[in-house]
């Protein structure tokens, strides 16, 4: 996905297909940005107890694990909520 090139203003002589693609791309980017924001907060809280003059290797690997686990948690929650319709 290339977000650096300018895109035409929405709805100006675009085909419905192009418009739908553009909307989906923007929604996906917004979702990703929010996810990164969340990960920053959560993983900073869990992994960086006492900020030092640089990130230790322990802190770095904690952050990697944190990102992986949080993504996994998101999947667990999603399946828990949507695989059985209550």
């Amino acid at each position: 996905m290339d977000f650096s090139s300018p895109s035409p203003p929405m709805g100006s002589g675009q085909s419905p297909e192009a418009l739908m693609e553009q909307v989906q791309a923007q929604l996906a980017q917004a979702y990703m940005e929010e996810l990164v924001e969340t990960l920053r907060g959560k993983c900073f809280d869990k992994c960086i107890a006492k900020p030092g003059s640089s990130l230790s290797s322990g802190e770095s690997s904690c952050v990697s694990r944190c990102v992986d686990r949080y993504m996994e948690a998101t999947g667990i929650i999603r399946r828990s909520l949507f695989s059985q319709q209550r």
Partner: protein
Amino acid sequence: MDRDLANNPQLIQFLSQEKERAMANEVVAKITSSCWDKCVDKPGSKFSSSESSCLSNCALRYMDMTMLIMKRFQQ
């Protein structure tokens, strides 16, 4: 928006689907945030079975609680 596009049934359905998808994503994100705080102490290289069950239980209890709140509201 073009009047034609605004009445395009394909677009209308598409927007409705994307809206539902976005709302579902928001619910998942909110619950994941709370349940992560409750269930995960220090992120390991995989979840223990107690962490996994805590997470899936947490989501369901959150929904149970939502029903309870709505009922209470109506009393």
